[in-house]
């Protein structure tokens, strides 16, 4: 069995842990991006939608608002994670769905 390193690689167990999470995320993001790129290529080759159409697409109306809401929630959830550590029932109701 391959065992963990004999001591933290960075000198700190906490730092090792954070870097592992970060690097796994970086890797998963790449794997997903690779897949999306392949999807775009195949969709274009099969005449379904071109990459240019995706690049030039300008969200409008209800769809644009939906994207705005999702994006704001995404940013709040990730950038706000270190700060949103205290809550009450009322604050959660006021904030709504993260």
């Amino acid at each position, binding site marked *: 069995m*391959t065992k963990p390193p*004999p001591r933290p*690689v*960075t*000198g700190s167990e906490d730092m090792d842990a954070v870097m592992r999470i970060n690097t796994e995320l970086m*890797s998963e993001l790449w*794997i997903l991006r690779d897949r999306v790129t392949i999807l775009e290529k195949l969709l274009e080759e099969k005449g379904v939608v071109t990459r240019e159409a995706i690049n030039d697409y300008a969200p409008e109306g209800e769809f644009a608002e939906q994207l705005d809401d999702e994006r704001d929630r995404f940013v709040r959830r990730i950038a706000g994670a270190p700060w949103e550590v205290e809550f009450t029932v009322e604050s959660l109701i006021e904030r709504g769905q993260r």
Partner: protein
Amino acid sequence: MLNLSQRGRAGLQFLGSLQPYASSRVRQLAKADFEADPEGAALMEEYERGGSNEPWDERISRGRSVAERSVAYKHERFYQRYVAEENFVRAIPAIEEKREEAKKLVSGPKEDCGGSLELDDSVPIPEYYEGVEWHLEPGGWDGYDLAGPMFMAGIGRYVFSKGGYAAVEVGDNIRNQRVDVTKELPKDHYDRIYEMGCGGATTLLACHQNYPKAELIGSDLSPALLKGGHDAARAAGVAIHFKQRDCRDTREPDESVDAVVMYALMHEMPVSVGVEAIEEAFRILKPGGDLIINDPPPFAAVHPFQAVVLDWDTDFRGEPFFSETCATEWVDVMRDAGFVDTKAFGLGSQGYPWINLGTKPA
């Protein structure tokens, strides 16, 4: 060529991007931090003056404490460890997704081209070898039945081919390196070339490229690596005779080969075993025969920061004998064994491949 699934391929390609980036850009930053540190500068001055009498482990320890002050060093070393682990964490499941196809590569019919494979399970497995997860590979060299396809279609193809690990620099072509190294043998022709600890066929195929008329013999302790080598040799149409042997006891007759090659072998054994292997090489070489040893450079030959980087592999990359090997001047061991016309030199910018050459007196 066996193609992996999207996830398998993309995951390994990610490692193949991360490692060279970390080993070049981030490592350069770490080295700059080392050189800017007053203690680092003192170590460099000592190195430029020709070293000191301080024991290697103490000198490396001083260098390590300087290096570990650098954030860039900590990041770069983290990525080295991460990639070394993830090579197998990703490649084994990726090959398992294609198990039937990979098995055909291993066990499918191969054309005979005059080589041979002699396995012998009476060859005792040495204590130093037992239970080591070499390079963090779970189960060691014989731990996974599809290790050959795993390296060929996965780790080798997407990660190792980019360099940036252990002593291999970013951009180094490790196949071409074997051709360049074996070309350093001093003669134009050899009748019989013997590789100790051959692993697979890669170095012997490079020997064939340089010495197409030579009879080629390779030995190793690992049945899996020998079988893989036999398959690779047949796929290449090159006759190589593979034998399961301990390099200290090849069972070849005295004075029966013209050249002995040891490629990236020494650091996989304790120094005491390496000494015995050199003595065995002397025995089986004909008078006038040549020995070439390629391995990571000795600590004495490299920048103090590079010495810290090499030493790190011992504890963190499944290389238990790396540091004691780098603390050894193999060319001195060769002279003690009776070799003459000995020389040692580096081919790469950081000293790897590091070559030791010697000839058995005629």
